[in-house]
């Protein structure tokens, strides 16, 4: 999963307030469970199992009680490593997303069920069918969070190995998404007999075999799953690179972004996405933007800040602070004193390429290291203190339910976001105060639904028909009003 880049937390002082362009916009929520990296606190006495089914049941049902649009599950293709060894400081282990969501589909009735699935190490016919099966059994609540991967380190767990060049990762992604859409469209709407006395179970010619051959895939298949009530599973995407944004603009319904902490940064991201969406021939609001975020809520602002200070110290343990520094420096620094100074040498020269599942993908480690050293020297901070001071945990929303509600409403009404994808830092109870206190604060302001209006995820998100279905129905992509 993509994680937030601290470099995006730009300064906002002196900027003119963003105009309210969407005065009636509503805040939408999703929940991303379970998170990656060190933001999930497993050491607290309230922290339950990260993998027991009961934890997933509690989170998904709490989210549904809070009228969330969607419940997200991540994907793991290889366990994280640090310096060639299993990374042992953070929560590790997760269920298979579609299998787990299928079980949760039986216990929920409205909330969307989003499976993160990579495009590189899945078979198109199998993946499309599994997603479609979840979509049908859940009554039109499934989504696919499309992620790419390309490296041989991950490929070592799969039949095809590291077969895909980095530049081709979105070629493959687009080919597999298009293959999936073709598979999802193979049944005519009236294919299935309505009577036991019909001449055949499926109307003759009503199930079209799919044949796709591209640069990176080949499949000839007679699909077996008709469309669900929402047409296709909703498509999410999280890639932040220019190629990723263009892919999103051309193909997906929702972007799960890393731009949700700073309003100007979020606005700039949203403008860029909408420009690409329009360039792709789609209405500007055709792609919804859901930044990932977290919340720290308390009765007063001071209590919330105190809770945040406690939280970050729980997240950034002494061992974790050394691990995070070691990731930047590119060497095992676990022998250092976390209460002592940063290393005084520069990181070993190599890019942090994210191939070991680490955060801060693509950033320049030397620049990050120098910035950390400068800050530590200026403020007299130890390793752990400087990691805490710069941790992404600061980028969530901290405050009273009322003040956080006001800030969220500002994000959606200025067009900086359509909703937020929340990563709870405590499992399984981390959503409880959000649903019990923040959601009512938003509802009091007329900025959050008080009941589900629809039954499908596509309806919750306010999305139009799937892209291929608009074309099939003869509707001009650009003619659909906002």
């Amino acid at each position, binding site marked *: 999963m993509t994680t937030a880049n601290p470099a995006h937390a730009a300064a906002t002082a002196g900027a003119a307030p963003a105009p309210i362009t969407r005065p009636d916009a509503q805040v939408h929520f999703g929940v991303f469970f379970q998170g990656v990296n060190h933001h999930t606190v497993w050491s607290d006495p309230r922290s339950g199992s990260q993998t027991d*089914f009961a934890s997933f049941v509690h989170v998904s049902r709490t989210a549904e009680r809070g009228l969330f649009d969607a419940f997200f599950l991540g994907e793991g293709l290889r366990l994280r490593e640090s310096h060639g060894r299993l990374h042992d400081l953070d929560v590790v282990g997760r269920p*298979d997303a579609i299998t787990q969501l299928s079980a949760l589909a039986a216990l929920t009735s409205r909330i969307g069920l989003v499976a993160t699935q990579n495009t590189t190490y899945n078979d198109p016919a199998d993946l499309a069918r599994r997603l479609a099966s*979840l979509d*049908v059994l859940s009554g039109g609540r499934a989504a696919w969070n499309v992620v790419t991967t390309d490296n041989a380190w991950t490929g*070592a767990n799969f039949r095809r190995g590291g077969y895909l060049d980095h530049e081709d990762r979105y070629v493959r992604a687009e080919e597999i998404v298009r293959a999936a859409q073709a598979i999802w469209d193979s049944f005519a709407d009236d294919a299935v007999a309505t009577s036991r006395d019909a001449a055949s179970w499926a109307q003759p010619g009503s199930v079209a075999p799919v044949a796709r051959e591209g640069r990176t895939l080949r499949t*000839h298949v007679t699909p077996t799953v008709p469309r669900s009530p929402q047409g296709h599973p909703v498509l999410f995407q999280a890639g932040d690179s220019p190629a990723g944004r263009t892919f999103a603009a051309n193909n997906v319904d929702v972007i799960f972004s890393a731009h949700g902490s700073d309003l100007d940064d979020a606005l700039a991201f949203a403008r860029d996405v909408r420009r690409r969406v329009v360039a792709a021939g789609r209405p500007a609001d055709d792609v919804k933007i859901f930044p990932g975020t977290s919340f720290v809520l308390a009765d007063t602002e001071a209590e919330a800040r105190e809770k945040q200070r406690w939280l970050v110290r729980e997240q950034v343990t002494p061992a974790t602070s050394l691990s995070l520094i070691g990731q930047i420096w590119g060497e095992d620094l676990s022998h250092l004193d976390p209460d002592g100074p940063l290393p005084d040498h520069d990181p070993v020269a190599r890019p942090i390429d994210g191939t070991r599942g680490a955060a801060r993908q693509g950033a320049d480690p030397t620049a990050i290291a120098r910035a950390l050293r400068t800050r530590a020297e200026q403020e007299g901070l130890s390793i752990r203190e400087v990691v805490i001071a710069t941790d992404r945990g600061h980028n969530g929303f901290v405050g009273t339910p009322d003040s956080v509600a006001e800030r969220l409403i500002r994000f959606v009404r200025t067009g900086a976001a359509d909703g937020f994808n929340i990563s709870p830092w405590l499992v399984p109870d981390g959503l409880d105060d959000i649903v019990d206190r923040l959601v009512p604060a938003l509802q009091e302001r007329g900025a959050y639904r008080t009941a589900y209006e629809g039954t499908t995820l596509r309806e919750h998100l306010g999305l139009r028909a799937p892209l291929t279905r608009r074309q099939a129905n003869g509707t001009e992509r650009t003619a659909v009003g906002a």
Partner: protein
Amino acid sequence: MAHQPLVVAVELDGFGAHPAAWRASTERPDAVLDPAALRRTVLAAENAGFAFATFDDALTTTDATAHPAEVAARLDAIVRASFAGPLTTRLGLAPRVQPRSVEPFHLAAQLASLDIATLGRAGWVVGDDDQPGLADALDRVVPETPEARRQEVRDVVTTVRRLWDSWEDDAVIKDVTTGRYIDADRVHNVEVTTATFSVHGASITPRPPQGHPVVIAPEDVLDPSLADVTLVAGPDAEEVAFRAERARRQGATRVLAEIAVVLDDDTAPGAGGQGNRGSAAQRLAALDAHVPWQPDALRFVGSSFGLVALLEQLAPAVDGVRLHPAVLTSDLRVLTRQVLPRLHATRLARAPRLGQSLRDVLGLDRPENVFSRKDVA
């Protein structure tokens, strides 16, 4: 009782085992897509006290226009079994999965996740991979000869078991003092290399409650010594007994006989389709008039008493049976109302108890972890 109770399993795919079952079902033709219908079916199986349910599957199908009478839609079996998980508390759930259709790494995680979500009630019916259209559907080159295929099935099963073992049961330690969530020494790379694939690392999913979900395979698909449950099929009881004995000699742990059943159904409401009522022979003739059915299993056509007698006859030779009801809304109902109660009353079979894993129900031990080093203090 001279024998252990028989394990009685049931196949629940589609409308029933007969290809024309949809015409005789009281469900609508689109019920194979209906979560409420799936819920009704699995609850009926659980309430009757079946040991486990299986869900047949294949990635693709033959061209619907070539076989217009057959049901052309089917949802993924793991998705169906997982959906059934929280709706049930005792019933084992075993999807059929073709070993070639899925990456071994994903398959191990999927079945482990099913086991976690069902608190230890998951099984895996190993598919034979000999499906029309499967090779064309898959986005890779697959071995075509029967022996190469069989070897790959073996390799996938062995690899999936290693992936289930890649986490020791006590790998999560939550050691607050050192900040370690997991003991890295208790998670192991599987480092498998076979003729057609390799897998390097540990599973993404922890070792499931049963250690290994129950591996169930027909004798001609997987060597009995590699399965937990071997399925044997023969044209009559004598042949079934012979094959069961042969499978045991080949190392089978548990042997279940495949039996297709068509039962007298005089209790059905009149609202059903043509094949819904009457004697078993009449019902079968009506179904066969639409599409002839030639199951490769032993087929029983007759009364519920006759079926119980057949099971009594088979009991010395096998550990249990998997029943394939011809039409679920008829034959499953007769099984639940007339057959299972009689088996339970005579203690020829026993319903699973709350809290039992599928391994418990089958009398199977929880497997040792190949990576555990018991000699290390």
